[in-house]
């Protein structure tokens, strides 16, 4: 039953990569936040920044560990579940992942040791350098993996020989047409998600006497980042959408729920796409707005799903609803960032309780938006694994369905357990909060050896 094996392999990959991406999304942003905190500490010498660093580095370490263990799985899963894909695209994607290991993974792993355990063993500036290197490492890693992912959406710089991809031009492969949109979009998603987590956790710490003063700088940085990043991300998303329209018009059609090619296409606020009937139910539409956004012309023509055969269309409802979740949350973050600016101007940022509650409630929403965005882009590419060139159904390994079912069930059990444990220890760390008493400037401690 090849159909079952394909679905199961896809489910397993979707589960493992969705689980994995939660942690890098947080750690890319947190690493940069830690760089900011340590720089402020070195600059001002104010102990509060070191206290905050020591608190957030624990959350960083916990999350980074989860990212590492779930990431190792992925480096083998290309082969275990998508062997055919590995053979066909290995000449192109293999070296990109190889460069990710060589330029990022080793860098992060080695300096993470210094960052987490080395504060008493190396001088402060060297420790700061380690934090910076880890932060840069997380972004280099994102660079390569997004180059690889983007290539699957907008393949370039290749030629096909006997059904195998060969490289014509590495710059064209790496800097493929969607890379410059996807890479900043994901980096900003990561920074936004982190801002929301830091703002939410700090908002909670603001309500407690013992941690209120300590939480202020973190809350100020996070809400300011939110106010700057949220509008930028919306602009970035709009530019990304224009690019998708050029290269993957059926993904746009699914995002918009548009069946017929239409001049002056409406924007659907809500609808229930019906793939069998090739139409929507319960439409709530704003006339001409989709054309205006996508073509910058209210009468512009947007291609509909009926341009291609039903077998060549993605799973429309999934793309359609995920897109609305992502965009809706994007505007919610814009509102939250703007409100923060307003309160800052009024001087009530730290004392406004409803705003603190909104921030707490919004803490996990960055992850929801990021996952929704990845679902839009990845399922929107279906039925292709390499847009227009290789179908996902042709990509899987010759592993029997029951073997995949076994490992898929185990992944559910293992990752479920891990997520519960992670959230439990995370909440424990957050409850403990930043600890001013534990903050001795590290370089004054007697354990420091003389040669340094």
């Amino acid at each position: 039953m090849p159909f079952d094996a394909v679905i199961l392999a896809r489910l397993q990959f979707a589960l493992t990569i969705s689980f994995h991406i939660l942690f890098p999304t947080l750690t890319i942003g947190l690493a940069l936040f830690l760089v900011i905190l340590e720089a402020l500490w070195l600059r001002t010498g104010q102990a509060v920044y070191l206290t905050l660093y020591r608190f957030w580095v624990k959350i960083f370490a916990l999350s980074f560990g989860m990212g590492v263990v779930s990431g190792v799985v992925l480096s083998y899963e290309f082969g275990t579940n998508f062997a055919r894909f590995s053979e066909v695209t290995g000449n192109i994607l293999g070296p990109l992942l190889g460069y990710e290991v060589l330029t990022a993974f080793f860098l992060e792993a080695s300096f993470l040791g210094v960052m987490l355990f080395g504060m008493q063993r190396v001088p402060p500036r060297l420790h700061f350098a380690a934090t910076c290197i880890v932060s840069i490492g997380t972004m280099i890693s994102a660079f390569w993996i997004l180059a690889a992912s983007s290539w699957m959406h907008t393949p370039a710089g290749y030629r096909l020989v006997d059904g195998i991809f060969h490289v014509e031009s590495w710059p064209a492969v790496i800097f493929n047409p969607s890379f410059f949109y996807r890479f900043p979009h994901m980096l900003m998603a990561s920074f936004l998600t982190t801002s929301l987590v830091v703002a939410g956790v700090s908002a909670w710490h603001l309500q407690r006497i013992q941690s209120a003063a300590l939480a202020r700088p973190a809350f100020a940085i996070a809400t300011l980042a939110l106010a700057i990043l949220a509008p930028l991300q919306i602009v970035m998303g709009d530019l990304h959408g224009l690019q998708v329209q050029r290269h993957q018009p059926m993904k746009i059609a699914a995002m918009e729920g548009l069946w017929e090619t239409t001049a002056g296409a409406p924007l659907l606020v809500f609808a229930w796409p019906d793939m069998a009937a090739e139409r929507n139910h319960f439409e709530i539409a704003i006339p001409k707005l989709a054309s205006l956004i996508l073509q910058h012309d209210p009468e512009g023509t947007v291609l509909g799903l009926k341009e291609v055969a039903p077998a060549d269309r993605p799973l429309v409802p999934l793309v359609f609803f995920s897109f609305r979740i992502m965009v809706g949350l994007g505007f919610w973050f814009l509102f939250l960032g703007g409100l923060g600016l307003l309160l800052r101007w009024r001087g009530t940022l730290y004392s406004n309780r409803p705003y603190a509650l909104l921030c707490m409630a919004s803490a996990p929403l960055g992850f929801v938006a990021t996952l929704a965005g990845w679902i839009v882009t990845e399922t929107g590419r279906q039925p292709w694994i390499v847009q227009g060139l290789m179908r996902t159904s042709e990509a899987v390994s010759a592993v029997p369905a029951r073997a995949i079912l076994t490992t898929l069930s185990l992944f559910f059990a293992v990752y479920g357990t891990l997520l519960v444990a992670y959230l439990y220890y995370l909440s424990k760390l957050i409850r403990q909060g930043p600890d001013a008493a534990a903050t001795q400037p590290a370089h004054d401690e007697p354990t420091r050896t003389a040669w340094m």
Partner: protein
Amino acid sequence: MDASFWIPLIWAGVLCLGLMLYVILDGFDLGIGILFPWGRTDEERDLMMNSIAPHWDGNETWLVLAGGGLFAAFPKAYGLLMTALYIPILFMLFALVFRGVAFEFRFKAERSRGVWDVAFNLGSVMAAFFQGTVLGAFIQGFQVTDGKFTGNVMDWLTPFSLMTGFALVCGYALLGACWLALKTEGALQRWAFHAGQVLMFVVLAWIAMVSLATPLMSAEVAARWFSLPNLFWLMPVPILTIVVGWMLWRALRRQSPWAPFVLTITLFALGAFGLAVSLWPYTVPRVFTLWETAAPPASQGFLLVGAVALLPLILGYTAYNYWVFRGKVHPGAGYH
């Protein structure tokens, strides 16, 4: 003798080196996990774990390099091997997940600490065991028709692969004991030297059994070792193994801190050399050579430039990481 000959050969060398580094580096830290239940007190177990806490992530990255490197340089072999080894590879990954998170979770847990002790121990044992079975299954070879794996999903499980699985658990435990002897003092160190002596004999016995079983299984391997003049050239390998074993025993007896670790690594290197002799030049044993599965020079060459430029740098800062955390590990030595 052009690029399409040399570049795959260099890549095979780089990957063998990476895999060897993985086995040594993650070998000793998986070994600590295997020996974990013998840590008598919570404090001893803290020490054991702290001796590897700053290093394990970097050590495991060599496994990612092996996977990523195989995907990049020999994509055909990567696809075929991962299909054939689906079950042991995924079980190894599950095991690595559990032992990896234990580093973070254990120090944050209070009542549930025992759970993560067990996760760390079982995860380490199972990861080592499945790596050993992967090696055994690889030595035995796979059923391939028209360039595709046509065997059964459980073909990897044989008496021989079980044997290599147990052998690797013992081998990693020996590496772990030597690392512990190097990094600790007092009672724990004395115990590590004793454990090392016992494990050493077990490991030498496993090496002997695997070395005998391999040529018995394959006429090609037997011919390579026992025909003249090969026999003459390869004779030093088993002789050196015996000599190193004897030196290791002496070093463990006189409780020298560095010598056992270095000698155990030498033992592993000799074993790896022996395997390389038996398996050369295949990426899928006795089916595909490394040249038949190589990515074209445009792909291999592109990544090779990076590997040649960056691997010395990586080795450099890995060495720096070990230098920062050199010396004995002490109780309460600051987590974070």
